């Protein structure tokens, strides 16, 4: 997932095309010609009399060619700009507001770098980019209509925003009213396209010239990929896309050089203070949020944990730390005297409990020991917006370092090592040995718990995880889905050791993320030959199941295992809670939450989209052979699905 610090700018493609485009200027629409002539006159000549070129054009008979064409539309230049940013893919559901760029990408751009991915919903496009980033470590571009497309995309953008994922979104829009050719184009145009998502994007711009587009497009990439990483929006005006590049621009348009900003590291004095608190602590605990941006982040967290012999509490937001490590999950925040939160977006929730939903009123209680100290290293402290409340409750901490955690870890590790004496090191080793015992017992407890309901139908999520692991453990695998809704069983049982073994969750818990994020992540895994596995919730898939077709169409190998509990189960439990509180109708919570009558046949759905499938499977003994058959398909480069009727969680 490492990325280069600099991307060189290739202007040759543009300049070569610009020469050809200049030669074709004689063949163009009259309106455009007049507009261009006016534009050229304004800056260059105060004399209102026609020049020699214009006089010749007005007195020479028109050539017998199609005058309504150009081989150099503005969108070609936009594609030149896009190509310098190094995108592998651009995901889009087709839309008229970006038809110019669409055509330039596939013809002028050769449909390579980026390659266009055909999506059936803009929410899928964004979530695919979301999942792709978490494997590949760089953004995917998405194109959408500035109005109706963005409206479809908005929930997925919020997920990416809350998950600190850079998605590069290009919107089409017809800014100037007289250029809108129909009621459709009026309805599909907007004064300020990005305003709808400005509360949950990091930066946007609506450039009004091709030169402005180049600068803003490069700037947007830099902003999106500087921690805290977030989605950005660039609006590509349709007139700029579709009209020929003005002659006056052809020799002077430039694409700025992209230089990515280095991530912000913590203040040295604050880092030294944190190191002293951690080394002096008797029982420090490290809470890992979105720490590892690259594989190096995992190595650094291992180094810090081993240097301190401190337990890791993982929030399952990224692949931060090996689940096989003896310090993984070996401590609790409540037992710590110093808590270090690394890129934890909800530190207050980590350090407090609240009145649960089964009781009236609201009280909260700090769960850390009296006198315990809390340190945070959090890039979120460098950036924030107010309307959407994903920032969580304000937490009183003892030392807050506003910085990127991964970039700060080398200095923190170094300072900790400087402070550890040989006596202290011996004490830390003893602590580490005790923590290893705790970790071992946790695992044994999980294995014993997995045995309960082993032969039950519907299939337990523990059995499903065990059946999968039985066939994945000898493969180069990648879990491209969250684990929240399957009682975290894969994370409790499987050996997560490599950076691509896990991608974390939704960000903002916006349902509908799962299937497309998995497809995007699987696409990133494809060139590495990894087996991508998606444990797919049924409710999530039904938001935009067309992404199954996208996976089949683009030959994206992935094993989809349906977690088919036939309900919006989280909501079912909440309604049950409310009914119990109200002392009535606890037998009616299924109304509006169950996905039954009829049961959805996901195997048939997958087949309809062109995907190999089996199921529904409700006998756990049938699951292993079905996984084997599906994996044979996946190894041939195709997606496959097994519909498993499962226990609720």
């Amino acid at each position, binding site marked *: 997932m490492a990325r280069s610090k600099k991307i060189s700018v290739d202007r040759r493609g543009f300049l070569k095309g610009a020469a050809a485009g200049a030669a074709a200027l004689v063949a163009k629409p009259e309106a455009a010609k007049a507009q261009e002539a006016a534009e050229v006159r304004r800056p260059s000549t105060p004399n209102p009399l026609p020049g020699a070129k214009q006089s010749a054009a007005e007195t020479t008979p028109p050539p017998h060619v199609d005058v309504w064409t150009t081989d150099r539309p503005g969108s070609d230049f936009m594609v030149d700009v896009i190509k310098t940013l190094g995108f592998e893919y651009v995901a889009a559901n087709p839309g008229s507001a970006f038809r110019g760029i669409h055509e330039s990408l596939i013809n002028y751009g050769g449909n390579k770098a980026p390659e266009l991915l055909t999506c059936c919903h803009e929410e899928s496009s964004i979530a695919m980019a979301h999942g792709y980033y978490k494997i590949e470590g760089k953004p995917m571009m998405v194109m959408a209509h500035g109005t109706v497309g963005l409206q479809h995309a908005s929930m997925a953008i919020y997920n990416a925003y809350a998950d600190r994922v850079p998605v590069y979104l290009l919107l089409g829009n017809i800014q100037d009213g007289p250029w809108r050719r129909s009621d459709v184009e009026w309805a599909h145009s907007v004064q300020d396209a990005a305003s709808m998502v400005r509360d949950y994007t990091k930066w946007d711009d609506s450039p009004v010239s091709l030169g402005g587009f180049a600068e803003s497009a490069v700037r947007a990439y830099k902003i999106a990929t500087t921690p805290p990483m977030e989605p950005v929006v660039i609006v590509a005006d349709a007139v700029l896309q579709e009209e020929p590049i003005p002659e006056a621009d052809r020799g002077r348009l430039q694409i700025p050089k992209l230089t990515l900003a280095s991530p912000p590291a913590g203040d040295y004095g604050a880092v030294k203070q944190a190191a002293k608190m951690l080394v002096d602590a008797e029982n420090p605990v490290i809470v890992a949020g979105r720490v590892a941006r690259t594989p190096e982040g995992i190595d650094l967290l291992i180094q810090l944990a081993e240097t301190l012999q401190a337990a890791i509490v993982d929030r399952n937001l990224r692949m931060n730390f090996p689940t096989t490590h003896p310090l993984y999950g070996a401590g609790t925040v409540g037992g710590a005297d110093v808590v270090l939160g690394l890129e934890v977006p909800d530190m207050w929730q980590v350090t407090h409990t609240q009145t649960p939903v*089964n009781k009236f009123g609201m009280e909260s209680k700090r769960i850390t020991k009296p006198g315990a100290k809390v340190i945070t290293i959090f890039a979120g402290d460098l950036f924030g917006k107010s309307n959407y409340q994903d920032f969580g409750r304000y937490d009183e901490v003892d030392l807050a370092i506003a910085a990127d955690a991964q970039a700060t870890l080398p200095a923190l590790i170094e300072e900790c090592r400087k402070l550890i004496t040989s006596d202290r090191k011996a004490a830390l080793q003893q602590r580490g040995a005790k923590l290893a015992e705790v970790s071992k017992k946790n695992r044994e407890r999980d294995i014993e718990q997995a045995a309960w309901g082993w032969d039950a139908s519907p299939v337990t999520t523990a059995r499903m995880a065990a059946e999968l692991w039985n066939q994945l453990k000898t493969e180069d695998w990648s879990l491209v889905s969250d684990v929240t*809704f399957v009682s975290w069983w894969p994370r409790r049982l499987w050996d997560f050791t490599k950076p691509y073994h896990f991608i974390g969750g939704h960000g903002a818990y916006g349902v509908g993320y799962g299937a497309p994020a998995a497809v995007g992540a699987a696409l990133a895994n494809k060139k590495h030959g990894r087996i991508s596995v998606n444990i797919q919730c049924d409710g999530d898939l039904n938001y935009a199941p067309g992404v199954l077709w996208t996976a089949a169409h683009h030959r994206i190998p992935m094993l989809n295992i349906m977690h088919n509990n036939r309900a919006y189960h989280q909501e*079912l439990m909440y309604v049950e809670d409310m009914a119990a509180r109200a002392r009535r109708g606890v037998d009616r919570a299924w109304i509006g939450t169950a996905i039954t009558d009829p049961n959805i046949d996901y195997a048939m759905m997958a087949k309809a989209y062109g995907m190999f499938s089996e199921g529904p499977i409700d006998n756990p003994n049938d699951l292993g052979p079905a996984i084997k058959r599906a994996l044979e398909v996946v190894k041939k480069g195709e997606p496959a699905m097994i519909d498993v009727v499962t226990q*609720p969680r």
Partner: protein
Amino acid sequence: MKQLVFAAVFLAATLFAQAPAGDAANGKKLFLRDGCYECHGYAGQGGRDGARIAAIGLNAQGLIHYVRAPAGAMPAYTDKVITDQELTDIHAYLQTMAKAKPAKDIPLLQQFQK
């Protein structure tokens, strides 16, 4: 102190004494109808949102006591929505649920032993 010891012994006797028999078949219907499976699983195996209750150690009286005033995040069910008799039947059904085999006897779980 004596009072505390007495209270503890009384509570233990109440919660773990031999329970009166309930109707397990009706208990199964109620287990599904009233949503016990939602958090505890169809097999009572437990999960993210509820404890394991298959082959529960509490007697029926203990179960009723807990359901009326749960200690954790479980909603409290009053006798208006589930009667004592219905909970006794559910308890009888929970007693019929299979206990887990030892993990060492399940080959697929042995792969996780380190």
